[in-house]
């Protein structure tokens, strides 16, 4: 770093006219603020002008001019969000200033704007930081400015890089010592350095541990805070288990609520790893719960008990009482908010406690405070089980109808998410749930149409018993013209139309359905939804004709069919010229059938069972009577690729097989947005065999490459033979594994068809990678080395390099550990036992060293 430019004496000021003019007429920060405030409308131009001034002034050789410019720039950068990266070098230039004021300005500028990712010049600060950190020991400047080292500490904690941290770590050690007046600050900065640069652990960790037993309560507080941060997720808390005795001592002796809170936080992370710690801390915890006047400490005790001491009945009871106290504090919304938050933590272990407060929770849903509503909703969902799902969800949906748009949708979102979780596990009565879905869609502010429509179709596919009710709900949605104007509901309507068409056999009145599907306001729908509407009309028409011939329905007779035909022709006819390919395609199909049926009717006159109309209608009906099943997201993956198949091969040579007919077919492939795969798959299956016009070349291709086609056995397309439901999935050659399809059969609930759960696999794999990442965390590795890894454990070389004084100190800390270990040394059998036991008790894979820690705690504490 360049040495500071010489201070201007009065002569040098006079000799340099520009510098004098600069400093005489330079606007101060106050001037700048005043001018911005005087005319808020022209703020951008004033700031732009100031910035150009600053760019000039900051290059000045006069340090005062420079520092004022930097001060203004810092202000503009911090509160008006202008980048000050161009001034990084000038900031560095001012760091060594002998004036404490300028130095502080420069450090402030640096700590607000520097960051390793954006400041390339950061390494240039190393020397100056080193100098300022060690200024107390080099006496000269210490008398004039005893707070000097705190400036680089701030900078280190906000803007340091790993390199800078490792270079400066040794300078922190004297500041962490007992005599240092800046001990608390140094502790706080040490935490940041440690987490940035794990290789500094051998140098800094031991002094940091010593700070736990400092005489200065502020230092202890800062040190406990530092360990609280170090052990916080996503870090692995296991390496800090050996510190449990130290922290326990703090917990028992400290008088500061701040310190106690942090100590409790550390314990709440350690107890799950070593449950015996729980029995140890439960006593002081109960004392705090009973006696402490500090609400913050009581709150922390509640959290700790609820989250990691659920088996200690006495403490649990105390905590639950305290939670109820919080909930009932009517005059303090903060306490009610926190009460709800802690109440939610009681699920799922102590649902009875939640149930006891159900009324308070339900009432909180209507609170004017959004945060409280949030928590109440969370608690409500946490206590929703199969037994009370109807009650809870009905209440919530009713509440959503009364709430403001944002919260209403949050409620709907939680209800939809939790009810559909694990294949609708919460839902016992699907008739109820389906009508609830309908109710949700009708809520004025509802924007969750996509999810509602997905679930409607999904339930239709999975839950056979729910279909009659689904059709009823769909009808109600379809016949309401007011819903057609709401663009959030287009998908819901589209799903309703699909359901009405697909499960038309449950419909009470097909004519009414056709009228609803063709009502004038359907012109408001987007193309995709209209296509579904028209396709559904076709399905309804086919069904009606069929039941007319069978005389199976009293609702369908000649007049009804005639009315239906004329209505369709009249309303759909104009759409044949629609510019949307999807719509036009469906319309032409529909009109084709309508005219065919109408013509034959004219020709045959009476109901001739052997006549053409019978044939046509039967064929048409066969098209749609086939049932669709859900398709697993993993279905495709299960089809193994044959060895001789080259998927990357150019498909151009297939063109010879594709006749015009095929091309037309593929063009008209219906794509129903909410369930594309299943629709396409089954439609193709059915169209294939019934299509008279199948080209011979395609047949040939099918024969040769039959493996890649979905099975088209006549038998399976016959509806009465498809008992084994779902069919679509089974047609896939390799997906019929009994292991993958789990049909949960309960007495009360209707069967919900489940396929394999791809999502579950995904989450478990991501979980294991997370665990992996935790194990690889370099910081915890380094700390483990220092705390545990002394003998023969292949302690890292960085540890060996550390000074001998640390080794001694560590021995002091772990004196008893060594004693206790002596007995075990060599008895590998015992150790193995311990490890195995540990593994049984603990969840995922604590590293080997954890097993060795167990005796440490045992001896010390238990």
């Amino acid at each position, binding site marked *: 770093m360049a040495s500071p430019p010489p201070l201007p004496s009065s002569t040098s000021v006079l000799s340099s006219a520009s510098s004098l003019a600069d400093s005489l007429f330079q606007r101060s920060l106050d001037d700048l603020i005043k001018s911005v405030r005087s005319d808020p409308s022209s703020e951008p131009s004033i700031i732009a002008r100031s910035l150009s001034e600053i760019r000039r002034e900051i290059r000045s050789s006069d340090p005062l001019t420079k520092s004022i410019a930097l001060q203004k720039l810092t202000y503009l950068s911090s*509160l008006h969000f202008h980048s000050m990266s161009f001034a990084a070098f000038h900031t560095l230039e001012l760091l060594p200033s002998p004036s404490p004021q300028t130095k502080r300005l420069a450090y402030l500028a640096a700590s*607000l704007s520097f*960051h390793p990712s954006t400041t390339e010049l950061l390494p240039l600060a190393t020397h100056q930081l080193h100098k300022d950190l060690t200024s107390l020991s080099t006496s000269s400047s210490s008398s004039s400015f005893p707070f000097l080292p705190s400036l680089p500490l701030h900078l280190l904690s906000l803007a340091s890089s790993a390199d800078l941290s490792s270079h400066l770590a040794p300078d922190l050690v004297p500041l962490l010592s007992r005599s240092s007046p800046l001990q608390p600050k140094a502790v706080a900065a040490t935490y940041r350095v440690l987490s940035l640069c794990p290789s500094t652990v051998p140098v800094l960790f031991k002094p940091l541990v010593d700070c736990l037993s400092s005489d200065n309560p502020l230092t202890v507080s800062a040190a406990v805070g530092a360990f609280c941060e170090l052990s916080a997720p996503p870090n692995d808390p296991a390496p800090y288990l050996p510190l449990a005795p130290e922290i326990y001592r703090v917990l028992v002796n400290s008088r500061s609520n701040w310190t106690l*809170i942090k100590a409790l936080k550390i314990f709440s992370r350690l107890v799950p790893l070593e449950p015996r710690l729980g029995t140890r801390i439960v006593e002081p915890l109960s004392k705090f719960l009973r006696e402490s006047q500090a609400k913050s400490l009581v709150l922390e005790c509640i959290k700790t008990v609820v989250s990691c001491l659920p088996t200690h009945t006495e403490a649990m009871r105390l905590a639950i009482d305290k939670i109820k106290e919080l909930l009932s504090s009517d005059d303090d919304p903060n306490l009610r908010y926190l009460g709800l938050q802690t109440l939610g933590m009681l699920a799922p272990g102590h649902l009875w406690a939640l149930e006891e407060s159900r009324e308070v929770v339900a009432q909180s849903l209507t609170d004017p405070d959004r945060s409280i509503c949030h928590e109440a909703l969370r608690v409500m969902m946490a206590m929703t089980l199969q037994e009370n799902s109807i009650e809870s969800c009905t209440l919530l949906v009713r509440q959503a109808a009364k709430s403001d748009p944002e919260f209403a949708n949050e409620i709907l979102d939680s209800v939809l998410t939790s009810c559909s979780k694990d294949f609708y596990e919460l839902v016992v009565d699907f008739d109820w749930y389906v009508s609830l879905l309908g109710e949700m869609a009708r809520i004025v502010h509802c924007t969750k149409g996509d999810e509602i429509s997905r679930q409607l179709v999904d339930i239709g596919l999975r839950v056979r018993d729910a279909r009659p009710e689904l059709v009823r709900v769909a009808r109600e949605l379809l016949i309401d013209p007011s819903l057609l104007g709401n663009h959030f509901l287009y998908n819901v309507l589209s799903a309703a139309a699909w359901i009405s068409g697909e499960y038309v056999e449950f419909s009470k009145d097909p004519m009414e359905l056709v009228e609803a599907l063709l009502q004038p306001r359907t012109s408001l729908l987007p193309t995709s939804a209209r296509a579904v509407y028209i396709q559904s009309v076709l399905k309804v028409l086919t069904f009606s004709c069929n039941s007319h011939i069978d005389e199976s329905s009293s609702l369908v007779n000649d007049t009804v069919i005639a009315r239906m035909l004329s209505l369709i022709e009249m309303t759909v006819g104009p759409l044949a010229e629609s510019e949307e390919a999807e719509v036009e395609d469906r319309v032409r199909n529909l009109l084709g059938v309508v005219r065919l049926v109408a013509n034959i009717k004219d020709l045959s006159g009476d109901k001739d069972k052997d006549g053409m109309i019978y044939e046509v209608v039967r064929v048409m009906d066969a098209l749609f009577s086939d049932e669709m099943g859900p398709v697993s997201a993993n279905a495709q993956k299960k089809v193994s690729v044959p060895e001789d198949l080259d998927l990357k091969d150019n498909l151009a040579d297939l063109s010879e097989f594709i006749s015009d007919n095929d091309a037309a077919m593929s063009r008209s492939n219906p794509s129903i947005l909410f369930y594309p795969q299943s629709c396409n798959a089954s439609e193709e299956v059915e169209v294939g065999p019934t299509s008279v016009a199948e080209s011979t070349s395609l047949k040939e291709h099918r024969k040769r490459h039959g493996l890649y086609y979905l099975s088209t056995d006549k038998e399976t397309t016959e509806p009465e033979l498809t008992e084994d439901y779902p069919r679509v999935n089974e047609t896939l050659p390799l997906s019929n594994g009994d292991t993958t399809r789990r049909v949960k059969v309960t007495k009360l609930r209707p069967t919900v068809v489940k396929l394999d759960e791809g999502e579950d696999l995904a989450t478990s794999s991501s979980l294991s990678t997370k665990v992996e990442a935790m194990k690889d965390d370099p910081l915890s590795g380094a700390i483990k080395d220092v705390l545990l890894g002394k003998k023969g454990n292949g302690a890292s070389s960085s540890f060996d390099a550390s000074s001998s004084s640390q080794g001694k100190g560590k021995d002091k800390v772990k004196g008893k550990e060594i004693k206790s270990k002596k007995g075990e040394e060599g008895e590998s059998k015992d150790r193995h036992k311990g490890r195995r036991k540990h593994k049984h008790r603990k969840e995922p894979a604590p590293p080997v060293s954890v097993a060795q820690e167990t005796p440490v705690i045992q001896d010390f504490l238990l």
Partner: protein
Amino acid sequence: MIRAVMVISTQGKPRLLKFYEFQPPEKQQEIVRYVYGALSERPENVSNFVDADSVFGQGTRLVYKHMATLYIVFAFDSSENELAMLDLIQVFVQTLDKCFKNVCELDVIFNFNKLHTILDEMILGGQVIETNSDQILKHVDDIARIEKSSSTTSLVPKSISARFGR
């Protein structure tokens, strides 16, 4: 840890910003806008906590205090206790009050550097280092005294400009 300390006027203007995890200026502006939006729509006499997951990440929260024309906001994560944070805001306000004798928005506007000095005596790198407002004030006063005594001797141009100012 404490993720950020913000003082924002009821007009949405930032008056003091300190982020304990680096945020580039554009992101800072976005955060201020979000926080102001979240706070300004809250009615009076409700709780002082707001979820901040969308800005500061999972499990983070804002605690704020509405005083006259200012919102004083701390953002913190699960390593801090909610009520302790509320107390800390109180300490901060008390310190400002003692420092400026009934603090008002103008004090905050015109004392950019002093505010940072006060904050730095209370929080370092997101860790609380002092919670006693008298002690904080004492440190701040000491610093001011030292800076004053050294600036009068060494800075000639300032004395010139001061004379011109008279």
